[in-house]
């Protein structure tokens, strides 16, 4: 969903025209294909049974079908090529629709300025209108694409799951009171206001609407008053407003599902009876509580199940994502089975499952989950909007100027009044008050969408004779909000200078201080003696850590506090970025700064080094080390080569991550010890282990590239494949002075692991730990100018030896 208004400015205009032409042709083709499909469908229903039987019999090899007695066998030429559309019709049509949706999405981003002016949702509706129009032109009946089963069971869940899984929990919880107010009270207000006033309008003479009763009006009001998560997501994705507003509107659209469900069922039930007693109202309230809390409970249960299952998946990594999807979908279906709020179940499932599952599953599975969710939700959303267009063309319409226009106006008015009124009350309880600008965006962002249409579609034709009029009004309202409000919200946001989303990556300092603040505020609350919400949050966290995490997270990782997890994730990301940033080239100059660890470490007075006798390695020792290191590298390479369809490539980078970290820590320790004693003369050029230790411990040291004139080692990260001999070359560096380009294996983890094992062995052999002797020295007194620039101790002044670059 990335807006790509840029990047295609340089396309030759001919390409653009061709692109547009292609687009139009594609639409036409799709339309015809679907028409064909629609055309064949009436024929099928007659022949279906017999046709089906025939195929079945043929496949089973039963000679001569028994169904039709007048079946005479006449010898025909053997059909070399035949067309059998009915056989594959349904999947074919589905695939065509999905393909259409995806191609549309593709097309819109190729056309440079279109996507920045018009939100995608509008364009998709237009495409839907076109396709629907084509189908109708061909004289066929438009398939009921927005059939409620299809919509609620297939199209909606991916979007909601995607939203729930990636829901930013912290801001959501911090604003939960406000969100609930808007969702529950706001929707109720909207429903009654719109429904009631519509009824009043209908009773006015001369509108020919007097047959519309109160209850159907209220029902209509409840359908149309709910803010739609799909539409909100689609539009708000593109305007990048600040997190608070986004979460307010979006949270509201998710949580009002419970209210909508209850109101809808309530009014639908009693529309037949014609009146609602106070008892029914009370029952309605109870029903609301059950629906919402029940939905959340169902979701939470499935979420915990999923988390528990993921604890044991370390040997079958390939199907990890599947568990998550299936459990979530089951949560949705189970909730729908009991008429609980399926949306809330999905959200609860995703949100509950996420922290535990992410600690358990592999990095690859995590990426898979992320991408599949995004893919499905994206396709779903596109399809929904296209279908809206098609359904508009298809559905029987009953246009009534009064009804429709009053609906649209009332919706707007009630939304504005509702938001303003509620904010007035809410601001009394908020620390960060909502300003007028915020209120405006919240009110203006209340978009209606396909859920309203589907709910309207579900209405019984007989019970509600004015159903077509309702549908027309709903569609008009949806069009109005999506087109008018959707298109104008972006310029309005810019005009009003509403705060936008901050793109900055979360830095480790912020993380440290966020945690620090949490504890600080909890402590202050304790001192004040007030059980405020920090206190309870802290209690929940501790409970979580003590009991829940132990059950649901595999291995030892449950002990890992959040800060450490964050830090590791950050290092991991940086390592991946390093790998992805391309092979064999110096790191890009988008490097923030040229500060390295050496600048940070406090200057320690160099110990009287001159007296220390720096021992040299014996040749034999060196050979040993080399052999160990080499064999470890080979081992790593072999591991990488084995492949099994049922397990992912044994990835030492990944599976050995924890070991790697522990070893790395030991190495850091080692490095620090060494840094105290190493100085310039006789220092070996940066030994590979040290280099890697430095790199591993200090992500920013990756970027420690300077112009050679500075005399600082330029690290050439040769992103060679593990099979490259480069990784072995460094072993020869031991003996070389002023080493030539030291290439570091790209799989820093992979080779590093090997190295680390080697280093450990050395460590165990006591080579390194002796304070006086320092590891891996080259033989002979190499007065190497290059020195442990990477290590912290600047050592005594050595300007005269710095003119050569350490590593060319």
């Amino acid at each position, binding site marked *: 969903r990335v807006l790509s208004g840029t990047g295609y400015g340089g396309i030759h205009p001919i390409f653009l025209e061709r692109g547009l032409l292609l687009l139009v042709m594609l639409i036409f083709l799709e339309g015809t294909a679907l028409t064909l499909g629609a055309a064949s469908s009436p024929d099928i229903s007659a022949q279906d049974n017999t046709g089906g039987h025939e195929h079945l019999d043929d496949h089973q090899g039963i000679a001569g079908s028994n169904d039709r007695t007048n079946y005479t066998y006449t010898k025909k030429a053997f059909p070399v090529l035949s067309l059998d559309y009915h056989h594959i019709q349904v999947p074919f049509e589905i695939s065509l629709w999905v393909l259409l949706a995806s191609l549309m999405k593709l097309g819109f981003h190729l056309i440079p300025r279109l996507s920045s002016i018009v939100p995608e949702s509008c364009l998709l509706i237009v495409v839907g209108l076109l396709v629907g129009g084509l189908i109708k032109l061909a004289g066929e009946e438009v398939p009921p694409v927005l059939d409620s089963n299809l919509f609620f069971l297939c199209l909606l869940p991916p979007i909601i799951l995607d939203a729930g899984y990636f829901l930013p929990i912290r801001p959501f919880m911090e604003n939960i009171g406000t969100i609930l107010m808007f969702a529950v009270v706001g929707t109720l207000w909207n429903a009654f206001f719109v429904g009631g006033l519509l009824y009043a309008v209908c009773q006015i003479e001369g509108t020919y609407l007097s047959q519309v009763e109160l209850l159907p009006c209220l029902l209509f009001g409840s359908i149309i008053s709910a803010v739609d998560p799909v539409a909100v997501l689609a539009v708000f994705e593109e305007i990048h407003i600040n997190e608070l507003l986004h979460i307010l509107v979006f949270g509201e659209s998710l949580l009002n599902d419970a209210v909508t469900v209850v109101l809808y069922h309530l009014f639908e039930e009693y529309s037949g009876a014609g009146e609602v007693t106070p008892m029914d109202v009370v029952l309605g309230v109870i029903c609301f509580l059950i629906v919402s809390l029940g939905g959340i409970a169902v979701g939470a249960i499935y979420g915990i199940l999923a988390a528990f299952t993921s604890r044991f998946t370390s040997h079958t990594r390939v199907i990890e994502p599947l568990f998550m999807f299936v459990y979530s979908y089951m949560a949705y279906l189970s909730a729908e089975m009991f008429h609980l709020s399926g949306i809330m179940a999905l959200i609860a499932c995703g949100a509950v499952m996420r922290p535990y599952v992410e600690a358990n599953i592999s990095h690859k599975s995590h990426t898979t989950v992320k991408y599949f969710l995004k893919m499905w939700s994206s396709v779903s959303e596109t399809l929904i909007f296209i279908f809206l267009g098609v359904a508009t063309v298809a559905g029987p319409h009953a246009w009534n100027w009064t009804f429709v226009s009053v609906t649209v106006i009332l919706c707007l008015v009630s939304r504005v009044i509702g938001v303003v009124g509620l904010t007035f009350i809410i601001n009394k309880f908020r620390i960060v008050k909502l300003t007028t600008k915020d209120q405006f965006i919240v009110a203006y962002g209340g978009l209606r969408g396909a859920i309203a249409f589907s709910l309207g579609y579900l209405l019984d034709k007989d019970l509600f004779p004015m159903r077509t009029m309702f549908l027309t009004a709903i569609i008009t309202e949806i069009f109005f909000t999506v087109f008018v409000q959707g298109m104008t919200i972006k310029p309005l946001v810019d005009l009003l200078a509403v705060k936008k989303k901050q793109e900055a990556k979360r830095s480790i*300092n912020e993380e440290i201080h966020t945690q620090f603040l949490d504890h600080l505020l909890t402590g202050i609350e304790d001192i004040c003696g007030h059980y405020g919400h920090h206190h309870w949050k802290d209690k929940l966290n501790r409970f979580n850590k003590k009991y829940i995490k132990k059950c649901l997270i595999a291995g030892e990782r449950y002990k890992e506090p959040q800060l450490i997890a964050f830090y590791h994730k950050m290092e991991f990301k940086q390592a991946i970025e390093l790998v992805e940033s391309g092979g064999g080239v110096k790191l890009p100059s988008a490097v923030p700064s040229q*500060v390295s660890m050496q600048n940070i470490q406090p200057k320690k007075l160099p110990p009287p080094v001159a007296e220390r006798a720096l021992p040299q390695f014996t040749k034999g020792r060196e050979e040993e080390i080399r052999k160990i290191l080499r064999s470890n590298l080979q081992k790593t390479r072999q591991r990488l080569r084995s492949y099994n369809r049922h397990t992912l490539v044994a990835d030492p980078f990944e599976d050995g991550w924890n070991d790697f970290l522990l070893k790395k820590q030991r190495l850091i320790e080692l490095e620090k010890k060494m840094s105290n004693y190493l100085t310039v003369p006789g220092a070996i050029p940066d030994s590979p282990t040290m280099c890697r230790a430095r790199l591993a411990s200090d992500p920013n040291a990756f970027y420690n590239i300077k112009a050679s004139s500075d005399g600082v080692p330029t690290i050439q990260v040769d992103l060679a494949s593990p099979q490259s001999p480069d990784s072995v070359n460094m072993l020869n560096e031991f003996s070389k002075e002023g080493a030539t380009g030291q290439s570091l294996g790209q799989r820093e983890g992979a080779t590093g692991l090997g190295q680390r094992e080697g280093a450990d062995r050395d460590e165990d052999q006591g080579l390194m730990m002796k304070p006086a002797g320092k590891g891996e020295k080259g033989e002979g007194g190499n007065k190497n100018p290059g020195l442990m620039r990477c290590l912290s101790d600047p050592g005594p002044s050595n300007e005269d030896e710095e003119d050569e670059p350490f590593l060319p």
Partner: protein
Amino acid sequence: MGALQSLSDEPEYRELAEKTGFSFEQIGILHKRFKQLSHNEDMLRRADLDTIPDLACNPIRTQIIEAFFDKRNFHQNGDGTVEEISFEEFLVVMSHFRPPALNMTEEQREKVRREKLRFLFNMHDTDNDGTITLEEYRHVVEELLSRSGALGKETAKGIADAAMLEVASISMGHMEPDEFYEGITFEHFLKILKDIEIETKMNIRFLNMDTTTLCK
């Protein structure tokens, strides 16, 4: 809201209210708590705060308690620590956690932000030399991770080092190999934390609503 006639030392409260910005009711509640903690004496000691049971599982409790006895937080330009504090000083320290008023100018918000960040800075800068050195920062991270029985001091060091490096990178940009980054100054501290909207986060809701659910 408004003065409570039942409070006997109203003029004193008025002065305190002016100084710290609390309302009379909030001052009354806090005074009750103060008396409860100090066992009805006039001065509060460290030992009194140590006895709060809920505080026992807080990883940074020593720093929090120290902050109450740190003269830098009393807004009187002193420094060093004291052994016991009066109610007024207690209130001044608490006032750091007051939420900003609704209609504040950008300037006033900035001032509030600086004040809160200054409080945090003082908590980290234990030797009061105006900078947070690597050692002090390491200590902070170690304390944060101390309760978690975590993977040991090495990770804490690693995290602190990485964080320090980040600050240096952001603040200093380019540094020569022999240049040395002394420590995080207050200005750098402001810079790296400017994205956390501290003035909206570092608040105690209690000071917003006048509820009285005092616990032990």
